[in-house]
């Protein structure tokens, strides 16, 4: 018990220390550059950069004696659709420092987004300082895509080996499966069963399990010093929420749709319902959209906020640069990191839980005798 605690403590310390060293490299690099930018702006930019997706998998970067930046990591393929498919390595961008020339077109990496430019790489702006250059459709295998694949493979390996261990070991999990089996059972018994119902929960189980472990693992990956922020990306959470939305509505029963378009049932005659329905039906329909929207925003904002807070606290160390302030912010960063581990699990749980709840609403079949009374009582 003590030994495992010590181990995990060391692991956490290592994680945080590497986060610090990660940001330190960046800070030093910028410090030497010294283009009139102060440290605060640097840290802010660094954090914002960290939150974004990137076209290469850089673990960290540092500056050599001669002022040249060295990046440790590997480039990833860029796939663009710009009047034809264009595939090239992101090393052509040299981390945004140079233009990439492909088939006579020039592309520039600007704030982690690819724009088509002329040979000089000029970017034109509108009044609100948004680039007006053509943005080709970008289907690149970015850092986040790589992490999704890694997580997917990890999950496949973990859970298929768990499944195999059942077959091999006469229904008893072995190894790491002993840790994951109770979680699988928890999702089944405490999330799916009570929220969806004993009869119908089975068909939703694969989705709930996959989404729970997917979000949880990616959240935990976000805690590592690799500087990944997959679940804190709006595109990812949107994709997940849209899947929940689609499943909810495609498995919706007649009762569910009746509830959407005829929420009062037969409690009122038709002429009484008209004035109410002018307000009620749009609200119900809006609820359909708001539910997945709040799902996607919640996950995104929580992960984003966690990363910002930890990044800021680590950045504070370099702002204070004192014996009092830096350890203090280190301690704070450590505490927040621990909370984030909890949040990583909690957000996965809430996403799964709410998805299950929505599925439960959609697949519910109530008996019609009580329906009207229940609806009236509800009003």
């Amino acid at each position, binding site marked *: 018990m003590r030994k495992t605690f010590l181990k995990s403590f060391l692991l956490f310390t290592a994680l945080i220390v590497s986060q610090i060293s990660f940001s330190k490299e960046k800070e030093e690099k910028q410090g030497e550059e010294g283009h009139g930018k102060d440290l605060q702006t640097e840290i802010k930019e660094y954090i914002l950069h960290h939150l974004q997706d990137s076209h290469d998998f850089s673990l960290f970067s540092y500056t050599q004696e001669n002022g040249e930046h060295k990046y440790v990591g590997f480039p990833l393929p860029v796939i663009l659709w710009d009047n034809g498919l264009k595939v090239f390595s992101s090393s052509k961008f040299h981390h945004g420092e140079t233009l990439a020339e492909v088939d006579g077109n020039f592309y520039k990496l600007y704030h982690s987004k690819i724009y088509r430019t002329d040979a000089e790489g000029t970017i034109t702006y509108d009044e609100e300082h948004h680039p007006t250059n053509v943005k080709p459709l970008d289907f690149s295998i970015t850092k986040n895509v790589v992490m999704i694949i890694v997580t997917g493979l990890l999950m496949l390996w973990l859970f298929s080996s768990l499944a195999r261990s059942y077959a091999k070991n006469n229904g008893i999990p072995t190894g790491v499966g002993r840790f994951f089996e109770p979680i699988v059972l928890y999702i089944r018994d405490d999330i799916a069963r009570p929220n969806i119902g004993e009869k119908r929960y089975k068909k939703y189980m694969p989705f709930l399990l996959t989404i729970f472990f997917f979000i949880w693992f990616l959240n935990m990956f976000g805690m590592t010093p690799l500087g990944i922020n997959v679940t804190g990306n709006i595109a990812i959470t949107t994709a997940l929420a849209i899947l929940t939305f689609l499943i909810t509505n495609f498995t919706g029963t007649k009762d569910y749709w009746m509830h959407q378009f005829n929420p009062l049932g037969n409690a009122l005659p038709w002429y009484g319902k008209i004035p109410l329905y002018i307000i009620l039906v749009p609200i119900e329909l809006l609820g359909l959209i*708001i539910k997945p929207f709040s799902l996607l*925003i*919640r996950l995104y*904002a929580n992960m984003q906020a966690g990363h910002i807070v930890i990044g800021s606290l680590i950045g504070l160390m370099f702002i204070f640069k004192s014996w009092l302030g830096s350890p203090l912010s280190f301690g704070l960063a450590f505490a927040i990191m621990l909370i984030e581990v909890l949040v990583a699990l909690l957000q996965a749980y809430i996403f799964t*839980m709410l998805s299950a*709840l929505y599925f439960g609403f959609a697949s519910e079949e109530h008996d019609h005798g009580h329906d009207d009374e229940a609806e009236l009582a509800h009003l």
Partner: protein
Amino acid sequence: MEIPVMVGAGLVVIGVGLGIGRIGGSAMEAIARQPEAYGKIQTAMLIVAALIEGIGFAALFAV
């Protein structure tokens, strides 16, 4: 971001904070009254808190 909008977002966050605080408080009282229903109360609390939190985020990002 304009200042009125930020103030509005701040107000929403205050409201959400109060709301979640109330839920948490009520859940604590409920658990104190019925410790055997701990699991059910916690689940319900998390769901409602998550729903309110969603409103807060929506307001924040609408800014």
